[in-house]
């Protein structure tokens, strides 16, 4: 499916509801009863409304791991961290996006070029990245 095709589907969705069920010819449509709502990205991405926030990734060091610079990161603060998860952490007065690595009960954070070990009271996992949206 090309990007153009996807775009026209999403744009068309705004008018879509008015087209469904149009009786142009006086007899029932063969698809009557099978229509569905259309793909709603909101339902796909924003599962827990109270804990989901959007952040903008400003650096390129996570690109090799799959998160490009400038991407919109959808973060769920209620999700539990798991090994290899992408997380937003508060570390030394900054919000950082790093991959979470757990081993032997210890934890560390890495990106394409460095490793960070948690500092007591200065490091905290804020949330887990559940989706990454990049526009081209």
């Amino acid at each position, binding site marked *: 499916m090309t990007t153009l095709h996807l775009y026209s589907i999403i744009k068309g969705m705004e008018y879509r509801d008015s087209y469904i069920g149009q009786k142009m010819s006086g007899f029932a449509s063969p698809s009557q009863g099978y229509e569905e709502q259309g793909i709603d990205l909101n339902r796909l991405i924003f599962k*827990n*409304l*109270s*804990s989901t*926030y*959007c*952040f*903008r*990734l*400003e*650096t390129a060091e996570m690109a090799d791991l799959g998160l490009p610079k400038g991407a*919109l*990161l959808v973060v769920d*603060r*209620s999700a539990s961290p798991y090994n290899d998860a992408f997380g*937003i952490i*508060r570390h030394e*007065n*900054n*919000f*950082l*996006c790093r991959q979470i690595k757990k081993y032997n009960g210890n934890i560390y954070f890495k990106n394409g070029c460095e490793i960070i070990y948690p500092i007591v009271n200065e490091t905290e996992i804020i949330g887990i990245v559940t989706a990454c949206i990049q526009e081209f």
Partner: protein
Amino acid sequence: MVFHIDGNSFYASCERIFRPDLYHTPICVLSNNDGIIVALDSECRKLGFKRGDVFYKNREKLKKHGVAVFSSNYTLYADISARMNIIYNRFAPEVEIYSIDESFLFFPDWENVNYSDIGFQIKETVKTETGIPVSVGIAPSKTLAKMCNKLAKKHDGICDWNTVNQDEELKNYPVEYIWGVGYSKAKFLKKHGITTAYSLKNYDLIKAKKFLTVNGYRTVQELNGIAAIDKIKEKARQVISVSRSFKAPVYEIKDIITALSEYTQEAVARMRDEKLSCKFISVYLMTNANAKGDQYFNTLSAELPYLSAYLPEIQGVANDLAKKIYRPNYKFRKVMIALTGLDYDNSRQYDLFDQSCKTKENNEPLMQAFDTINNKYGRGTLKLGCGCLNGNKPQEEGQDPWKLRRDYLSPRYTTNINEIPKVY
């Protein structure tokens, strides 16, 4: 069982969520037009500042102590508040939103249930999902729950009425702090020797009804653990008013009309939100009573021939009223519009001589389209022509003398795609 939950230093806590660099910094939040301090966190309070301190008088002192100052970011606070209430609704069968940072949760009276545990879970969930620290008061009535909430600040944030020494706490609680006891009731009570919640709890109910009105009577019942104060019934509003003080003095009638146009649009939008129409319009115009120079305060009202929710009509009347009370050479500081005589407009019967029924049929769809577009694309997307009397210049801060001063406004982190927080 009633839970009363409120955010600790709510506005200040909201400002901290997306500022990891301010986690250990004192924060305070200012009122409209950056006038006075309306919210401070505990660090800021320890430095000696309090609610009501005038900002410009304390500016240097705040800077010296490294306090981070913010203008009120209502958009952000409303969004965070909505998230908290979504969480409350997950836990409790019934939730009553009392204010932007306080809610009452109602649970059935279960046996063998540790309500403190539930309170703790709610507190943890809110902290994890929104970053806001809350306090929880748990009691059989709203008044006691509110009291417990205050006591909770000393009990790790949760206070269950069943676990405290009730008489002891009531004896230590001054009567004027009780929810529902205002200045005049407190004065009366103190005159009759009732100075603590304990003595009010034991006050004769018949005397309470006689001297403290039915609300005072209910408060005494609530102090005895009887839930007497009902959920606030949805009542139609009596008046809708919008007013702001201008950032700088305004002299020209066209600036006043432009400001009035924005406030009228807001008032009519709020009125239409509740499906109401208005019969009376009042406009108030005033100078700053605290400033030097000639003072002017005036107001004028008009009655419409029929209930209306049609913006151009209401705006036209408001503009006429403003022009009538405007006087040149005064430093105007504030204009206000009030819509009263609010009612649901179900009338299909019009005056015998009323030519308006035809136009009414056209007006309503126009207003609905107007409302829908402004709701979808943002308030102010469409406005009346008199809202653009300054030539349609792009919205620059400082251009319009009557815009709200909010010099320390933080980004709309959670509601505007261009203002979302950055990660590195």
